[in-house]
Every structure is written in structure tokens, then in C-alpha cells.
């Protein structure tokens, strides 16, 4: 809907910018403000985007509940613990073996199935989260990402970058490959100072 309206707007724009009607339609110069917007529109003509998931939600109704509790907590003064580092540093290798085990157990003989996999991915993410919490790393926050990619001969490229405290924060990945799909689990552990 959006795309169609944009296309009709660009044609009168082009006619306005080259009043001398040459045989070939010259592309307007980059230095005119409207022209830049038009070029951008042309480039992005075939692309669409949307926002899939946001937390806290845009309308902020649920977020307020947490804030009352939090401001009450701020009034309590905690004694300084003088702790500069975590009690137990995040050990990537032991977590990796555990997660690889979980993946192998839950995805043994599971074939790719459109309907059940969306539920399975959430289930697996929760399971991995409970397993990582069981390790007992204090004051660590965890982010688990689970990806299922069906193997149909297409190419996929996954990249991650982060800004965190290199001394205490770390990440772990586990991959489980079968004939019809690949399952990838990423775990990020961040120390809450």
C-alpha cells in the first residue's frame, strides 16, 4: 500500500526536475534535496520492513508495574559488598557441553515440521535457560537465542556483535545438524555489576 503511493509520487517529481524535455530521462542530481529522497525511495522500492517484537511494549502499560516496586527498592539502602568481580566466573566450556547434550536429547529423531517447530523453539529456549540458571552463576544475566533453519539449499549468514565487559561476559554456541534442518543455540552471559 505504502509502496504504490511512493511510486506515483516519484514520477511527477522527475518531470519537475528536468523541465527541458530531453529524449532520455536524466536522473536528477544528488545535490538537490528532493532528488536525494527520490533516489532513496527508488533504492528502497522493493524492500519492506516491520518491527517484530519489542520489550518493553510500546504502550508501556505493563512496564509501570515493575517501576513502583523498583522505586520502593531504591529507598532501601543496601550495605556495600565491596565485591568487584563475580563469585564464580562464567565457564564457557562446561555450559557448552551441557547445552550440546540438551540439543542432542531433545532433537534426536525430530523431523522438520512447520507447525510444531515454532512451539518447539520456545520450549527449547526455556529449557536451555533453566539449565544455564542451574549452574548457579550469581549476578549473571542470560540471553538465549534459538534458531531453526530448514535445509533447502539457500544460503544464510548470521553475525553478532556486542559491547560488554570482556573480563566477565562471555558467550557460548551449540549446533545440531540433521538431514532436514540445522538448530543453532546461542547463549550470552552478562555480569550485572
Amino acid at each position, binding site marked *: 500500500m505504502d509502496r504504490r503511493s511512493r511510486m506515483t509520487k516519484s514520477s511527477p517529481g522527475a518531470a519537475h526536475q528536468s523541465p527541458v524535455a530531453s529524449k532520455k530521462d536524466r536522473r536528477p542530481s544528488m545535490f538537490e534535496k528532493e532528488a536525494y529522497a527520490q533516489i532513496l525511495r527508488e533504492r*528502497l522500492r522493493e524492500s519492506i520492513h516491520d518491527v517484530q517484537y519489542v520489550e518493553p511494549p510500546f504502550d508501556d502499560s505493563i512496564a509501570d508495574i515493575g517501576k513502583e516496586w523498583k522505586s520502593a527498592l*531504591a529507598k532501601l539502602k543496601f550495605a556495600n559488598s565491596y565485591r568487584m568481580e563475580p563469585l564464580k566466573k562464567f565457564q564457557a566450556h562446561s555450559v557448552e557441553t551441557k547445552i550440546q547434550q540438551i540439543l542432542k536429547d531433545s532433537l534426536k529423531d525430530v523431523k522438520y515440521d512447520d507447525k510444531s517447530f515454532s512451539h518447539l523453539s520456545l520450549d527449547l529456549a526455556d529449557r536451555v535457560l533453566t539449565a544455564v540458571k542451574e549452574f548457579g552463576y550469581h549476578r549473571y544475566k542470560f*540471553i538465549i537465542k534459538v534458531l531453526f533453519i530448514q535445509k533447502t539449499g539457500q544460503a544464510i549468514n548470521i*553475525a553478532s556483535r556486542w559491547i560488554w565487559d570482556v573480563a566477565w561476559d562471555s558467550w557460548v554456541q551449540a549446533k545440531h545438524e540433521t538431514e532436514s534442518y540445522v538448530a543453532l543455540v546461542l547463549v550470552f552471559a552478562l555480569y550485572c555489576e
Partner: protein
Amino acid sequence: MEEYHRPCDEVGFNAEEAHNIVKECVDEVLGGEDYNQNNINQWTASIVEQSLAHLVKLGKAYKYIVTCAVVQRSAYGFHTASSCFWDTTSDGTCTVRWENRTMNCIVNVFAVAIVL
């Protein structure tokens, strides 16, 4: 001794700003391009790095993790889920899905607050 309480963390993670930043970065890198095996590594790396650089410029006390998956457009199935253990009042996430004629791109931003 007074407790220094950062006023901006009270608002929590601003997902609107984050999604605008991500959308602009992806448009800049992938806008008008077709899927190309030679460039794809460079594109994913630059999307992620640029988003991260812009997020940091916001100047908030947050740790960021940005993940990007770019897939060639064809008939395939793709599921992704994430589960997080954090402080819901100050931390947040935002996922932006972008597509064009030849590829699909999903960018995920996780922001975890640093308590100073």
C-alpha cells in the same frame, strides 16, 4: 553519602529509538542490493557494527548485543526464539525484520542495563 541514582534508567530501554537506528542501518547497507555471495559477509558485519556504533552514541549506560541473520529468499522454513533472564524494568529487546526481492534480514538488539 548520597546514592547516585541515574534518572534515565527509570525510563527503561527505548525500543523506538533502537528500531529506528537498526532500520536505517539495514536500509543503508542492503537497500537496493541483491543477494551476492561475495559481499554477504561484509554486509552482515557492517550492519551489525554500524547499528552497534549508533546505539552506543545514544550515550546510555547499557551493554548491547546485536545479532543479524541474512537469508537468501527462497522457499524455506525459519524459526527463531529467544529467552532472557534479566531485569525487566531496565533491560529490553527489539527485533526488526527487513526484506526485499532477494533476501530476508532479521536484526535483534538486546540491551542490558549497567547499574552504576
